[in-house]
């Protein structure tokens, strides 16, 4: 299958830069300037470095699971940057950008991967299934797409309460087949809440290709039936993603919701439990390589004279060093005890849970005697 980003113009895909980082797309350069584009690029590189380290931690048995994000750095970083820090972000499983871009620590991120008791979710959820209220990054349920209606509902509440908060709800292409996607589009069309729906179309839902997911040639158009304005964007072009998301956010004060389809490519495994050799040809990966978001963004920076080989070497060294420090700190943190699973089931416990907890603790600590 050809890379749709090569035919962005005829497919109506918004694009600022081509594969060489040259501005010649169908969308104006948002002119973010040196510091902002450097920040976007540096965050993308940090994400890629985290991904490489996370993969190794899983493969060496130090963490139980990994969800690779390689290839999807641009869409998450640029979309996060286009939202305000107070906006709520519901994340598809490969999105870590709000954590890094809104001031939560790398050490705490790795604490999540190791299941430390001190991370926001207290070690309860698989590595990468993360969230952090301190940075308005919601821990949604794991079932793909189940939280699209929650994102819409939060935005609806913000509107009803007169809050300035907007919501970014991200999900994958497979999630558009779930009822919750259609529920959310339907309610959003009726009530016009301030929500930006971002469908990260990475071309694969585990092994399922797009033509097994939908007969539609695009996901964005699914908004038409619900009167939800929609747009397709090159998800490997951070400038285009930023511009489109920024406009969608601004439009929340006007028409309300927008559905963005960001077209990208999952370069790696679906998860550490996957094997893409069973369903994907390596030559497809090769076709997408020139459209790698990190290399395209670097070329844009270099052509603007905002990036050098020295900058690159220094950045990589800094990322590796920061990650190493975070891993060392996180791996030695305390993990939760058996009693911790009984906390937060309810705001306050009840006799049923108390009885089960006391019995379990007695059994595991002294054999129940």
């Amino acid at each position, binding site marked *: 299958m050809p890379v749709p980003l090569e035919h962005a113009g005829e497919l109506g895909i918004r694009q600022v830069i081509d594969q060489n980082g040259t501005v010649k797309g169908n969308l104006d350069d948002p002119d973010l300037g040196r510091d902002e584009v450097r920040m976007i690029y540096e965050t993308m590189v940090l994400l890629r470095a985290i991904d490489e380290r996370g993969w190794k931690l899983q493969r060496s048995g130090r963490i139980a699971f990994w969800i690779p994000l390689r290839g999807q750095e641009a869409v998450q970083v640029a979309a996060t940057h286009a939202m305000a820090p107070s906006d709520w972000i519901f994340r598809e499983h490969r999105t870590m950008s709000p954590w890094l871009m809104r001031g939560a620590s790398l050490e705490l991120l790795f604490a999540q991967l190791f299941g430390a008791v001190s991370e926001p979710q207290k070690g*309860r959820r698989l590595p990468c299934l993360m969230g*952090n209220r301190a940075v308005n990054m919601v821990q949604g349920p794991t079932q793909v797409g189940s939280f699209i209606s*929650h994102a819409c*509902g939060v935005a609806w509440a913000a509107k009803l*309460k007169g809050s300035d908060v907007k919501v970014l709800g991200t999900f994958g292409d497979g999630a558009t087949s779930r009822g919750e996607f259609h529920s959310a589009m339907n309610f959003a069309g009726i009530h016009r809440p301030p929500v930006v729906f971002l469908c990260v179309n990475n071309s694969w839902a585990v092994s399922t290709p797009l033509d097994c997911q939908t007969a539609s040639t695009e996901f964005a158009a699914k908004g038409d039936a619900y009167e939800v304005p929609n747009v397709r964007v090159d998800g490997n072009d951070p400038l285009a993603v930023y511009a489109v998301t920024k406009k969608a956010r601004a439009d929340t004060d006007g028409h309300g919701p927008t559905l963005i389809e960001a077209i990208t490519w999952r370069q790696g495994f679906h998860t550490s439990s996957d094997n893409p050799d069973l369903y994907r040809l390596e030559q497809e990966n090769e076709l997408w390589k020139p459209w790698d978001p990190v290399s395209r963004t670097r070329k844009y920076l270099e052509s603007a004279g905002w990036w050098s080989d020295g900058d690159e070497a220094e950045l990589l060294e800094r990322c590796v060093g920061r990650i190493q420090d975070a891993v060392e700190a996180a791996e030695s943190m305390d993990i939760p005890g058996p009693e911790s699973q009984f906390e937060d089931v309810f705001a306050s416990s009840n*006799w049923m849970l108390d009885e089960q907890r006391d019995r379990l603790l007695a059994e595991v600590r002294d054999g129940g005697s």
Partner: protein
Amino acid sequence: MRMTVLEALRAAMAHELENDPDVVVLGEDVGTAGGIFRVTQGLQNRFGKDRLIDTPMDEKGIVGHAIGLALFGMKPIAEIQFSGFIHDAHEQIMFCAAKYRWISGGEYTVPLVIRAPSFGGIMGGIWHSQSIESYYVHGGGIKIVCPSTPQHAYSLMLAAIRDPDPVLVIEPVPLYRTLSGEVDDNGEASEIGVAEIVRPGTQVTALTYGPLRHTTAQVADELASSHGIDVEVIDLVSLIPFDIDLVTASVNKTGRLVIIHEACETLGFGAELAARVQNRSFGYLQAPIERVCAPDVPYSYRVGDDYCRPDATRISAGIRRAAEYSF
């Protein structure tokens, strides 16, 4: 003030709509029409279309969006038109609403009320006569209450709305308009998890909830005069959590237990009650724990109300089996 069950539910919702701007009601036909049972009648005129929201016909959408409202600090009351329609929203209820607090380490919470009009007795057939409580007792994170009198309807609805966690309110459809009583509508919520002794007795404990509370109480009176059996009738009122202390105190006194509910027998809530009671009261039991439930069949339009839902004859037989058993 004298109210029907339906009026008591409405009065409680109106009280909270009046006093808490974060409370909204959403569901199919709840606004303009006031709900197909008219439980919310008049509330949209009083509180506006932003507080009484007519939704698309989409149960998982109603609950899913209510979860979003709740995450942002509102207190939504989501009506499912009939409990038989709730299954589309099961994942939203059990693995979203009921799990947010836990999966987020307590960072996000869902103070949500789900109203589920339930039970047989209206010749409603399979989808309009369901007892769905067993599907929601498994796995934690959601409370379940089952009011069976106007007073319980009023004060448990207040408790459910004010609770910081999701609460499923199993509402007794056949009692909506047929049962009225004095309600102390003072704005005070009752405590979730407290059962009620409907009729004190000494020889056998009849444990039930929902509309069958009233049938069971009548049967108990009849058995006292006809057979000289002194039955203690307990209305559980709340299922999660349930009042184990009141139940075991009664069983320890009578030594005999009959559990009566409208839901199907296999893994009905009676199974859990029986397991807990035998564990706590094993040495006091003088008879096997009896259950009077619906058989594991779908609910028939024509004969369900008479032969699927336990009636006075079957309840009486069940109580007598327990009362007359000897080793």
